[in-house]
């Protein structure tokens, strides 16, 4: 086991290096200039832009810049944002709690919906309940979040006026009123993300429950005279959820990475909106840090998923 983890971690190093090199080169080749906006302002002399480019080392060859970035990253220095003139880690840490709260809650909501619905649908395949669950799941993951998000805004904010559509990371105030406000503003984004995720989870839960339900030990359990509820809960669900657990583990990086589109629509100051703003402003250090950390998390949680799988299902041996 220890040797396996070590081997996997060693393999991760070249893949992360490769990822960072590709990201850096693509960003360097992309058109745009972090100080481009200054070019259109007649009061800013061109020398200022040149001085800024020099100061941030933008005129050096790509490879030199890459090595400099890599060296700093190895020392734990994530870089310095051109647009905000602060350290990138400060920016990221400032936004992480919001993303964890919103995307994390949506994942929990997704599981709360998907597991019962999936198991219930699998109990009587092709019954009316199953058909309804299937159709909804299909609709759910066919509708992109930018569409459902706008739909929710039009309905709940504009037509009905129930919910605000501008999210505030730290609302001023305390007490119950504050807690209620915080929940109220999170309802729409969490619902949009949660239902989208729930739709695909539902299909996984249903499929894997159907597979398990056909196995001999389930028939044995039924033959022993156990009630249908006990069979589903104790015998089917436990084994059927093994693939779902790994699926959830693979989704964890997304919880940290944020949801770009949804964050933009609801103005949630999370990692996703930081990434998109940084891209629009050509703020390379921020884009590099966010994408690279995301890549690192994906690699790490792939390993975690594999380990979890082996632990939950002893039939699978890791070598």
């Amino acid at each position, binding site marked *: 086991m220890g040797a396996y983890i070590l081997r996997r971690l060693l393999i991760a190093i070249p893949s992360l290096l490769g990822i960072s090199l590709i990201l850096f080169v693509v960003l360097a080749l992309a058109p745009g200039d972090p100080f481009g906006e200054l070019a259109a302002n007649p009061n800013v*002399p061109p020398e200022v832009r040149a001085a800024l480019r020099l100061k941030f080392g933008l005129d050096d060859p790509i490879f030199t810049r890459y090595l400099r970035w890599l060296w700093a990253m190895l020392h734990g220095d994530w870089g310095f944002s051109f647009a905000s003139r602060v350290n990138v880690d400060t*920016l990221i840490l400032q936004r992480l709690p919001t993303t964890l709260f919103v995307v994390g809650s949506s994942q929990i909501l997704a599981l709360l919906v998907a597991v019962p619905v999936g198991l219930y649908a699998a109990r009587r395949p092709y019954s009316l309940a199953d058909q309804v669950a299937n159709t909804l799941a299909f609709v759910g993951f066919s509708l992109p979040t930018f569409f459902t998000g706008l739909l929710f805004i039009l309905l709940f904010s*504009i037509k009905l006026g129930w919910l605000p559509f501008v999210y505030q*990371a730290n609302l001023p105030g305390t007490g119950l009123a504050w807690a209620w406000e915080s929940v109220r503003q999170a309802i729409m984004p969490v619902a949009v993300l949660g239902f989208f995720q729930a739709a695909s989870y539902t299909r996984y839960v249903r499929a894997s429950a159907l597979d398990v339900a056909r196995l001999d030990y389930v028939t044995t359990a039924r033959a022993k005279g156990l009630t249908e509820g006990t069979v589903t809960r104790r015998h089917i669900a436990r084994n059927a959820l093994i693939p779902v657990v790994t699926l959830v583990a693979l989704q964890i990086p997304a919880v940290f990475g944020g949801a770009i589109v949804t964050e*933009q629509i609801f103005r949630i*100051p999370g990692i996703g909106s930081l990434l998109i703003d940084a891209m629009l402003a050509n703020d390379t250090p921020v884009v590099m840090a966010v994408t690279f950390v995301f890549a690192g998390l994906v690699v790490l949680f792939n390993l975690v998923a594999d380990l979890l799988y082996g632990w939950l299902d002893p039939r699978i041996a890791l070598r």
Partner: protein
Amino acid sequence: MDERDLRGLIGRVKSGELSRRGFVQRMLAVGLSAPLAGLMLADNGVAMAADLRAAYKPAKAGGGGALRLLWWQAPTLINPHFAIGTKDQEASRIFYEPLAAWDPDGNLVPVLAAEIPSKENGGLAADGRSVVWKIKPGVTWHDGKPLTADDLVFTWEYARDPATAAVTIGSYKDCKVEKVDDLSIRILFDKPTPYWSDAFVGTVGMVIPKHLFSAYTGAKSRDAPQNLAPVGTGPYRFLEFRPGDIVRGERNPTYHLPNRPYFDSVEMKGGGDAVSAARAVLQTGEYDYAWNLLVEDEVLKRLETGGKGRVDVVYGGKLEFLLLNTTDPNVEVDGERSSLKTKHPAFSDPKVCHAMNLLVDRKSIQDYIYGRTGRATANSVNGPERFVSKTTRYAFDPAKANALLDEAGWAKGSDGIRAKDGKRLKLLFQTSINAPRQKTQAIIKQAAAKAGIEIELKSVTGSVFFSSDTANPDTFPHFYADMEMYAISMTQADPSTWLLQYVSWEAATKENKWQGRNIARWRNADYDAAYKAAQAELDPVKRAALLIKANDLAVSENILPLVHRAEVSGVSATLVAPRSGWDNDLSFLPEWSREA
């Protein structure tokens, strides 16, 4: 009315007995134009401040609750001298203030200054080489320290140091600032400077505190904690800033203007897109003010029916224009296309330029595309009023255009396209991707086709078109096309920097890495002469005449102004928000209040 009566009237305006508007009306009655009357007042040290500040109703400071501002581009830093975009300037303006601000008519209003320097009060030197600003006494920084001349001298030293890499360096590098006494400074110029009100004024003029920034000048400037936590003199004190998300402030109880500010707290939320920002103010009323609504007027009208807010339009110096290349974009000389060594086959002939000008249907562009958010214009300089040419005209006249092209020797071929010396009149017309621009392109292409000009349209993504990448041939300064269209803003209430974009020595070339401002590469000796004369002319009326002449020359050939575009904002129905197109949206934030 003789000179004595006139002086008497000016005196009454000064003492506040007669309103500025009242004065202008009297002048109109005796046959003087409004801009000229304005100039007379400005020359005598009377600005419009009285009118703008007189409209403020609340009788005490505070009690207004929260003011909620929505900026669809979020501020990323709050140091006015590092502001990359308007968003950062606006966020800074909540906390920092300049000596004076520009009002909607392009006149100076004192903010931190005790008065606007003039010849009358001895502020302006007769030779135009120096100006003395007096600072308002009793102004304190948010941390309680007094504002003194040292802070201004420091601001100048800070901004002019190339190692600081301040974006405002252009306004400070060519002057010298010295302390006269604790509450006054003298700005010295090395040559007579008629436009003396650049440093310490408006968007570039925000004063920063010496006692907090002095340890962070030059290369160390980026480490200053105040870059993210400003301490200024403004109406609101800093509470919280999250880059790219939100800025929060609370009422400054020791603010230097009486009974101001009205609101107890202010919040500037950023991010999202312009349409939903308009929605949050006009339809749901979640926010009080939405900045820069780059949304088609039709959509705005629909949102406005909600009744929660209104669309507010002010005009500054933003101009949408069309450039006709004077050089040949299809011939490469020394590794450069559109080189000064070439001549455009068609647009080097003024007749073809005139014809093209007659083929642009500005009225339709205004009516069908920009609506309330722009007005058709034939001028490059569209304000302040005293610099606007009255003699220029625009017209849409395909028949006359056809005649001009015939005259110029471009004869229609069998396919209806004109040709001369075996060259077909086929032009490449580029702009950035933006719905109104593509519609404008279509209108021009259609009209040109009727006159036998074939136009090929090209649209480039904004991030490429407006980048300064010297290796990319699709940027606007490269101008590797026959025609191009975009907008830039005249950010000061004085056209001298703006008109620099048509002087011959500013032509964009490979040699200056396409950083020259003259993109059309239009070169005209008369223009250069008028521009240079205006730079040294100290008499405001004569100088205005020279600048107007420069404008008229510029728009007579290769530069085709199209639309004077407005600064469009969404304002809550209850909010009173005076603002100026010549300064930041928040330049008059202390005057903002709410009406029941």
